[in-house]
């Protein structure tokens, strides 16, 4: 798959992440959630490991090798994983793009 080389703004990354989340967990479950950059990945979005894997795959398919999302996740300790929110993912993707 072609990788996107144009830099995305944080708003664009946010809406892309929302799209991925919707694809992974299903529209009707997303409707009940208020997704914001503060949304915690595991607590608010209630993503389990299988869903996180398919979310990672979507990031990989979209951004290609410029972003090692799985590697980034695996370097975290438990508290970092518990506190992981969408905003942190957006900043990480922004950093990788620069």
């Amino acid at each position, binding site marked *: 798959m072609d990788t996107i080389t144009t830099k995305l703004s944080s708003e664009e990354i946010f809406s892309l992440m929302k799209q991925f989340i919707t694809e992974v967990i299903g529209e009707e479950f997303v409707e009940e959630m208020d997704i914001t950059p503060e949304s915690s990945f595991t607590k608010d979005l209630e993503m389990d490991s*299988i869903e996180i894997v398919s979310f990672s795959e979507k990031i990989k398919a979209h951004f290609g090798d410029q972003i090692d999302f799985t590697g980034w996740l695996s370097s975290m300790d438990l508290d970092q994983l*518990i506190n992981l929110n969408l905003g942190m993912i957006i900043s990480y993707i922004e950093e990788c793009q620069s």
Partner: protein
Amino acid sequence: MSKFLFVVPPFFGHISPTLSIGASLLARGHEVKWLGITPLAKVHLPEGGEFIYPEEDLAEYADEIQRILKRQDDGPTCSGPEVMKLALEETYVPFAKMMMKGLNNLVDAWKPDVMINDCITFAGALSAHLKGIPSVTTTPVPPDVMGDTANSAPKIFEWQQNLIKGLQREVGIYSDDIHIHSHKLNMVFTSQAFAGFEEKPPHMHFVGPVKGRPNLAPFDWERLSKATTPKVFVSLGTLLVDIRKEFFQKLINAFENQPVTIVAATNPDIFEKWPDNFIVNGFVPQSELMPQMDAVICHGGFNTVNDTFTNGLPMLITPIAYDHFHTAKLIEQAGCGVSIRYKRLRISDLRNTVFELLENPKYRQAAQKIKETFIEAGGNDKAVQLLEDFAEVHRVVDFDSPLA
């Protein structure tokens, strides 16, 4: 004849297989005791066995034990990493510390030949190590539920190691090796094929499901015999009290007036009225009931999973927390059922999946294959043989005895 001591946690799913093996050991003439951190009702105990709850040695922890038990209700609302913390740091490690005193006292007084600790009840293996008694571990769930953290999540691996080594130092074991499980014999109550292990460590033995623990729960067999539609057994296990009502409401919405008979194991008090095609009992004779069923719905409690595939039935698994997700993955890999995560469970999917399981023979065929691997694993006979051989090989010479 040998003296076997089981060391168990306050969770019935983990105690249950030890009661079945204990019953077989007692029948062979061995002496068997259990030690736990909460009392166990006498009806569950095989005849001739003794359950020891060292109340005096645990007295100072009484409030803390209750708090930790209550905390388990938070499990279903916790995320994966939070559950890891809840389990290891907030439950297993503190329980192990609390159990040491009473356990060491019993070991000194009774001098068991073999100590058998459940996999989350570290005190058993730690005490055995301290006292120089041969130890065995029992594992009711398919192992490796936390995955290969050493490579995939080094910081989480380090956290686990630090917690365990901290516990070991606190009980007086100053070694860099891990002693919370037996390195010599670990009996797992499933088959190697179902657990998805291509290779296994030499000390790990997959003995398959075990049975035979006392279960005197009454049941209205006559009502069941009158049911003409396919029978679906539903269980949520003994934990997960808080979400019970919500779960069974979904079930009612999905199956009220549908051509199935739902046999549910849950306290009927949660609703005033149940639909006519629901047979609901607080406690059921599950292993006698299961051969009469056509499919099973459960969250992934391991004893129900074993009862299901022992009878070659297809399963809808709705994983909620803990190791349920790992079990769900194994079921999908084996093709003997379908997994829908509880938090993403739609009523229509619940209904459609159950009818798919009943009508499409491929699930039942895959379940039959798992059944065969369970039978080959050997069950109670294999477990008893492993334990007797282990006791024989590791018999400790009693240097205090005048004959030694």
